[in-house]
């Protein structure tokens, strides 16, 4: 399932966790204005072991441990970005955006516009999303809809190591604020990644991970891998096309429409709560731009408007998985 982007490139195999860490290492090496800031990303090497050894390579100034102060972290990153630095802030669990929402929505998102375009806002915020490890409601949320919805913020959510690398580099090099959402259950997923230290994936570009003629599945994060598995299982029966959306905002309407023109049927799968979720925006774009190509009602797969409960029997009930994707495909195929 190597994508077209990879065909002409030298690649190596790595996990999503490694892809994120190595991209940060390369960007820290390349640009002195880049620094990392967040809770326990240094000495402790990151609560989910993403920053790893970067602290040992770059020291406490470039890999800055902070007190437990998300409003301060996101606010300071915003202030630093407005004054010539290029911070990469880690929010740890995305649920903690609650604490930092003010600086995010009223400062980071609005500053450039309200200043009449006179500053840049080159800040990246990394956060880990999603359920599956029994971490309960305050450590399992998927909040990317809120960020993608808010004008002035860009949001990406990779489903493969390659996308993680290409998008994180684009995020760091971007002069606009970009939230980079990691799903905590796929850190160990591995795949081919270009070795080129300038490899980027443009913000706002989806990718067809698997071609098919019957049903399009537009997936994000963990659901990309799950959808590819389902597509393989249905092979010979239903020909499924799987698209990794990758960017939530900007959103690649063209790739979605092109696929729908071919298949006429679509499932949109992600881990955002369903009502008013990121899935709904994909559906809206499809209906607005490909209505006459549709042969069946579009299906959404997501978290059914609950929080993520703790107990395994409850958690697995609300988390969308391969079965949900398969059921959705079979309903319309």
């Amino acid at each position, binding site marked *: 399932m190597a994508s077209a982007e990879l065909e002409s490139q030298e690649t190596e195999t790595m996990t999503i966790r490694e892809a994120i860490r190595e991209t940060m290492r390369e960007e820290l090496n390349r640009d002195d204005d880049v620094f990392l800031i967040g809770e326990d990303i240094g000495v402790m090497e990151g609560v989910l072991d993403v920053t790893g050894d970067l602290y040992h390579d770059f020291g406490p100034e470039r890999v800055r*441990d902070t007190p437990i102060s998300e409003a301060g972290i996101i606010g300071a990153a915003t202030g630093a970005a407005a004054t010539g630095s290029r911070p990469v802030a880690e929010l740890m669990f995305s649920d903690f955006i*609650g604490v930092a929402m003010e600086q995010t929505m009223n400062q980071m998102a609005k500053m450039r516009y309200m200043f009449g375009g006179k500053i840049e806002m080159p800040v990246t915020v990394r956060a880990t999303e999603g359920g599956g490890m029994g*971490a309960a409601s305050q450590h399992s949320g998927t909040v990317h809809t809120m960020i993608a919805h808010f004008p002035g913020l860009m949001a990406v959510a990779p489903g493969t190591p390659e996308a993680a690398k290409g998008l994180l580099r684009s995020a760091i090099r971007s002069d606009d604020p970009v939230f980079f959402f990691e799903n905590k259950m796929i850190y160990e997923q591995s795949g081919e990644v270009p070795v080129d230290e300038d490899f980027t994936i443009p913000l706002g570009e989806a990718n067809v991970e698997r071609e098919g003629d019957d049903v399009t599945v537009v997936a994000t994060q963990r659901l990309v891998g799950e959808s590819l598995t389902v597509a393989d299982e249905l092979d010979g029966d239903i020909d499924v096309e799987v698209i990794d959306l990758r960017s939530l905002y900007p959103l690649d309407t063209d790739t979605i429409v092109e696929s729908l023109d071919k298949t006429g049927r679509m499932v949109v799968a992600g881990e955002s709560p369903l009502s008013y979720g990121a899935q709904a925006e994909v559906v809206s774009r499809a209906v607005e731009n490909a209505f006459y190509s549709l042969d069946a009602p579009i299906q959404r797969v997501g978290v059914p408007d*609950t929080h993520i*409960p703790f107990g395994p029997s409850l958690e697995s009930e609300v988390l969308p998985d391969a079965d949900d994707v398969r059921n959705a495909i079979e309903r*319309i195929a």
Partner: protein
Amino acid sequence: MLTIREFDTRAGERFADGEIPGFVHLYVGEEAVGVGACAALEEDDYITSTHRGHGHCIAKGLDPKLMMSEIYGKRDGYCNGKGGSMHIADVDSEMLGANGIVGAGPPLGTGAALSISQKGEDRIALSFLGDGAVAQGQVHEAVNLASTWDLPVVFLIENNQYGEGTAVSDQHNAKNLSDTAAAYDIPGINVDGMDITAVNEAVTEARKRARNGEGPTLIEAETYRFHGHFEGDQELYRDEEEVEDWRKRDPIDTFSERLIERDELSEEELGEMREDIEMEIEDAIEYAKNADDPTPDEAYEDMFSQRVPDIDLFVEQANARADGGTRGGEF
């Protein structure tokens, strides 16, 4: 203290064996703070807790069986299996929840104290918070509101020297966290958190002030967690020697030695207590293991006080899936 020690030690073991999902943050080493504080409270006083909440729960009188069931994600756990270790709550015991968000408890404590004062009730609220939580903006707001309005609340900082892997001195410029009380013009008291009596006296005094309408007190109890931040923590940030030094000040040992010296407790009695508690916790684990899991449709319960058709639809779909059907119509 013995019950907490046994509960958390065993919970840690069960977690290491893969029986307990998610995270567990153990209170081992810090027992004197929770027990000393709750012993100074009346039964109907409120507390708010933290992610490291098992000790607070037991000290407030919660049932280890139902706590353990919650930690195992079972239906008859305190939160019907929805909360887990980090979220045990029991409103009937005026225990307003452990909390997964660092620093989120104190505003709730201030709120409980506000309702106490509005209703003219004869009780108080006490919020436990970690040293790390003191760096949160919402903690400042909570203490400021409470002190401005003279609310009956006590803020008790459990300074266990670290927030995750970051030492207190790397998180705060203030030498003593209790010094921050000066900014609110309320008493700031620093106590030995390894000494149950010292904690108890400080909270008793603070409770009295709160009930007299003199407003909040900020207490800092110096303590130490003997385990890692969470179970599985590699503890890259501290050395074994430091842990050993603090272990010598084990709050259970020092208190029981003191009681034995004063002839208020005998070695035999202590041994019997330990045995009884070991059995109680063993029973709690057995009970939790054998308790029923919630059924999948229970995931949709408890979202709102009223029926919401949007969620009903999801429940129907869940049931259809459980019957081997699929959701949605025919085309």
